[in-house]
């Protein structure tokens, strides 16, 4: 059973089109360090869905990949000749299509509030992307935007008083939000600790078996961000021994 983020080599421009997956086999096209692929991987792990992974070199994309997703993005699910793209759409599909605990909140009011939070969280993501790709002296604006998003999560947890965004256990919205929190924790731990509820929430999430299954060491998150800044990404890097 392939779990976690998948250790498959990232296929690049010179690669050949892989054979399609066998009947009823779910294949994920992803990238090991992508927070969006991470979302889907968390959901697959939470539902215990066996799947295969094909990793894509996003800097030097295989030409055949554009026939899977004309936007060239990851993650994408391929199953029985069907292509599904977008991290949220694919994650929702897995929760809907497979048996086991439903990760999606059913109470309409709670679900609506989680949807609003997910929208507000786009600031966290936008700010993160901006800050991560700049050198420390130019990160201020990105960090500011990112903190506005984190504050929304903090306010949400404070107002609901629940252990996780979805309630007593992590649910779909928790897994949609976690990948960026994991990266923020690695790059700027202070940004997490300054928000009391987000900090406590992060510690709880880090004890979740699903989160642990898909977690990357902080050092790898930091190295990947640094490599992106220098435009020298090595997708197939192995874990370096560094203080976490």
């Amino acid at each position, binding site marked *: 059973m392939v779990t976690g983020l998948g250790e498959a080599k990232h296929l690049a421009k010179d690669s050949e089109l892989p054979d399609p997956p066998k009947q009823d086999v779910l294949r994920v096209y992803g990238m090991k360090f992508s927070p969006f692929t991470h979302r889907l991987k968390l959901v697959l792990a939470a539902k215990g869905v066996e799947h295969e992974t094909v990793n894509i070199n996003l800097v030097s994309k295989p030409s055949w990949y554009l026939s899977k997703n004309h936007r060239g993005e990851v993650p994408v699910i391929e199953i029985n000749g069907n292509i599904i793209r977008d991290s949220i*759409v694919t994650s929702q*599909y897995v929760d809907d299509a497979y048996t086991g605990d439903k990760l999606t909140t059913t109470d309409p*009011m709670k679900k609506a509030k989680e949807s609003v939070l997910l929208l507000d969280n786009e600031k966290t993501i936008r700010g993160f992307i901006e800050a991560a790709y700049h050198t420390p002296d130019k990160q201020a604006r990105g960090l500011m935007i990112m903190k506005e998003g984190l504050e929304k999560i903090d306010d949400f947890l404070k107002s609901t008083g629940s252990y996780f965004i979805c309630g007593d256990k992590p649910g779909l919205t928790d897994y949609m939000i976690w990948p960026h929190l994991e990266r923020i924790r690695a790059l700027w731990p202070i940004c997490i600790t300054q928000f009391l509820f987000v900090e406590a929430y992060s510690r709880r999430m880090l004890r979740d078996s699903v989160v642990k299954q898909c977690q990357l060491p902080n050092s790898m998150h930091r190295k990947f961000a640094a490599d992106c800044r220098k435009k020298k990404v090595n997708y197939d890097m192995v874990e370096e021994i560094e203080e976490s």
Partner: protein
Amino acid sequence: MAGMGNERHLETGSIEPPPPGKDVVRVYGMKFCPYVQRLKLVLAAKGVKHETININLVRKPEWYFTKNPKGLVPTLEINGIYIYESDITSAYIDAVYPGRKLMTEDPLKKAKEQMLLGDHAKTIAFYKYACSSDPEVRKQGSETAKLGLGALEKFLKQAKTAFVCGDQPGFTDYMMWPHIERLGVFLPDLIPTFELVKKYFDDMGLDSAVKACRFSNELLIEFFNFEESFRAGEKRRLYDCGEVVEYSFPTAK
């Protein structure tokens, strides 16, 4: 009470309306807003009685920001709770109220509809361009809208159903309809070039929820012309186009 609501658009300096009664659904909207129309279509399709308060989006009442911090429409108010965003409020209404479930349940179909909705965003872009006096910009808008319609044509061809959601209009149909309706008014030559989209356009026009929320082309054009003069720099913006309904409570100071 179905329809977009002809209630007067409240503006800066107006008195804050009293809260709605217990369990009463209130929609804060704008008569001609396509995003509000999404919610209105769902309310009509589910037969949900509701009251409407319309908001002047250029001179927003100060009190409105306490309902929706972003000051956007639509916002739903029920028993002191506010929900906003067109898709979130629409999904909420579909989930809470009895009657036909508009949301597709089959996981694969649902995923495909969500991807289509993402592609549909290309028809929304035309708005920016259609009111330009520059023919080159209008042409660009038309080309962008064609991409969205092309995606819909492809979807309908593969699905082989009358509507996006199946044999009857569903959630995704209602999310897409307001912008497609406007395309039909402002770029009338575009839709007929797509065989299945043309049929879809005509079939949607027969749906009772669509009919309940639809204005005449003339009224939409009248509103849009005011919008165009607004963009050209004129200060006035006439939201209260056509019939106007007054509120039962005082609104002006």
